[in-house]
């Protein structure tokens, strides 16, 4: 949701029960029809423009006309479902579920809840303190903080759209593993003393917030629509730019170059270099994945490119600067180090499994 939709025009009235009853099946049908005719559509676009897929330009146009609508459709669908699911998991509820949980089961639960709990990196600090002050162990809190940005619906939708469900599932599972294991390690290291002093002294107020239980299905579905407007409204330009760049690479960049730089013939240090390169880069999954796809179709290794992507999303410099307010340097360094190791491991694993 943008500011302008709030301040300039009044929001449209939320649909009624009947509206949802008719609207959702209709939207689902239209969605399915569009999704199942993408190849015909792309062929038609190329033919209408008088191009041939034999040419660089034709191939690039086909790539764009197929991938752009496909990814946008998947985003719409998955983001809507997640928007509805998130109404069941307010941060307060997640905190209550995690409070007092032991290391181990707690980390597992925290990583899972990280997927469905609404999270914005600008709220990372209040969330962090809120969890700790409610008795959620430090290691469990970190599992949540790692999983929430890394295993997000936009990344999953894009991976699913561009690489298929196997790669999306592999990303989901390994992302959760990294969050669980990194949280366990941080918990075992007993690093509570590296919290900033003011954090340990803080007295967290108990807010009497309305819980999610009072929401009707109308409210939840409306929240799903709002989530779509907010997320898809924000990321669609990146998706189009990303796919555009991808289409360019797809049509024009010679294959041998990529294979040498990032593919099977790449030196062993290409992977750590890719991870290091990802840290100062801060973008959302939407912008980077289409580029990643194009790199891979040109022979870059999947593990290296995915590790690069995880590093861009999960280890962002701005988020670490925010966390610096609550964590002392050794704890931040440990956090970054453990997550980077996890990503490296996943990268080598993917490269090993898929060659």
């Amino acid at each position: 949701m943008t500011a302008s939709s709030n301040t300039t025009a009044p929001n449209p009235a939320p649909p009624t029960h009947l509206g949802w009853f008719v609207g959702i099946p209709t939207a689902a049908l239209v969605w399915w029809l569009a999704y199942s005719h993408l190849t015909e559509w792309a062929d038609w676009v190329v033919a209408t423009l008088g191009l041939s897929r034999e040419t660089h330009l034709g191939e690039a146009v086909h790539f764009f006309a197929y991938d752009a609508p496909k990814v946008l459709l998947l985003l719409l669908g998955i983001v809507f479902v997640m928007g509805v699911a998130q109404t069941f998991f307010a941060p307060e509820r997640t905190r209550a579920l995690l409070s007092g949980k032991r290391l181990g089961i707690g980390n597992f639960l925290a990583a899972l809840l990280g997927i469905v709990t609404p999270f914005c990196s600008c709220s990372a600090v209040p969330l962090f303190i809120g969890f700790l002050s409610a008795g959620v162990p430090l290691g469990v809190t970190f599992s949540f903080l790692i999983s929430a940005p890394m295993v997000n619906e936009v990344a999953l939708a894009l991976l699913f759209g561009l690489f298929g469900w196997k790669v999306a599932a592999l990303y989901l599972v390994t992302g959760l593993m990294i969050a669980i294991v990194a949280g366990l390690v941080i918990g075992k290291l007993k690093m509570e003393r590296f919290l900033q002093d003011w954090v340990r002294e803080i007295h967290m107020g108990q807010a009497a917030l309305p819980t999610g239980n009072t929401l009707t299905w109308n409210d939840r579905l409306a929240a799903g629509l709002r989530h779509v407007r907010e997320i898809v409204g924000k990321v669609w330009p990146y998706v189009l730019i990303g796919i555009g760049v991808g289409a360019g690479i797809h049509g024009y960049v010679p294959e041998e170059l990529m294979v040498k730089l990032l593919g099977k013939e790449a030196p062993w240090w290409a992977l750590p270099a890719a991870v290091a390169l990802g840290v100062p880069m801060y973008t959302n999954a939407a912008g980077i994945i289409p580029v990643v796809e194009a790199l891979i179709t040109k022979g870059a290794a999947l593990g290296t490119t995915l590790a690069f992507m995880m590093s861009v999303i999960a280890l962002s410099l701005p988020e670490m600067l925010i966390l610096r307010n609550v964590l002392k340097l050794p704890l931040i360094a440990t956090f970054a180090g453990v997550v980077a190791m996890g990503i490296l491991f996943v990268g080598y694993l993917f490269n090993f499994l898929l060659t």
Partner: protein
Amino acid sequence: MEVKVLGTGCANCKNTVQLIESVAKAMGVSIRLEKVESLPEIMRYGVMSTPGVVIDGKVVHAGGIPTRAQVESWLKAAS
């Protein structure tokens, strides 16, 4: 009426402030709007996801920009 918007200065927080201002103006309700940016103070309200909205000392909303209808109902209830 005293309205506080809790948030560390992200875009959503600024949008929330603007929204409340414009709704109050449209409804002709006079409010004292304050932005709370200090983290310890935000935490005192028990809010974990920003922006949060506090009306006369009571937290009525947390996490994300409220809808226009929500803001209208708060202002109506309190005026």
